[in-house]
């Protein structure tokens, strides 16, 4: 049962590329916020989840984990998204 004593090894150049992408996306987010508040909101809705996905996938090794763990993370996040969706339904049709 000890087929795996430590996790998948992610090479440092990969990690550095992910970091560079995160910094560039942050710059894009800041740039969009200077254009207009509409652009800022759209940039937030699109870029922020991409940044979070990069951290979860590469830095947190989720990409290399087994389906069980991926499924658990997906379930937890989907639950949160459903709650947020329900909140906006409530506000819109109040």
């Amino acid at each position, binding site marked *: 049962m000890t087929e795996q004593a430590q996790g998948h*090894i992610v090479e440092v150049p990969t990690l550095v590329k992910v970091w560079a992408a995160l910094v560039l996306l942050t710059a894009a987010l800041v740039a969009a916020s200077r254009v207009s508040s509409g652009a800022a909101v759209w940039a937030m809705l699109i870029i922020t989840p991409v940044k979070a996905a990069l951290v979860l996938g590469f830095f*947190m090794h989720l990409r290399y984990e087994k389906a*069980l763990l991926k499924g658990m993370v997906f379930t937890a*996040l989907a639950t949160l998204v459903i709650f947020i969706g329900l909140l906006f339904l409530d506000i819109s049709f109040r």
Partner: protein
Amino acid sequence: MSGAALPDYQGSKIGMWLFLFTEFMLFGGLFILYAGSRALNPEAFHEASRELSVPLGVANTLILLTSSLFIAAAVTAIQKGNKRLSLLLTGLTACCGALFLVNKAAEWGMKFHHGIYPNGPGLVQRPTGEALFFGLYFIMTGLHGLHVLAGTVLLSVMAVLLARQRVRQGDSVLLENSGLYWHLVDVIWIFLLPLFYLAA
């Protein structure tokens, strides 16, 4: 199958992730509160957020992103058996955490100076929506700051364990799980930056 207990790698990982889910939900509840309050007070949130310093918020983002790179590389280093590099990178990550807290303290200090704190003179005369914005700002960045503090302490402990060979190649799940915690703190800040500093 007797003698020394085998480290249950998968079990440790899943246990850590279960804990991280509770953290998702803890901050998730606050994000929902923010979203609801903002939907009801859009102008007040817009006005109040302009008073936050974008350069300080972005600087703290860069500090956390870089620290995340350091701790991820520290995990790679120990998995490959490079103890000294792993120790150095773990130490650097803890230093980044401390730097983040210094920045945050400076930022809060400036707000306090202008009377902006819960029930402070700079807030009570303002519209309810702006007081709500700053209330959420202090609660959410404060709770996040506590997590940064906890993570910094945790990583300092990991540095000691690395130095004492308690965390080593082939038995590094403690460092990996501490790294997961640190990345979670980073992910939460990734969401806090646009919510408070950029997109309101």
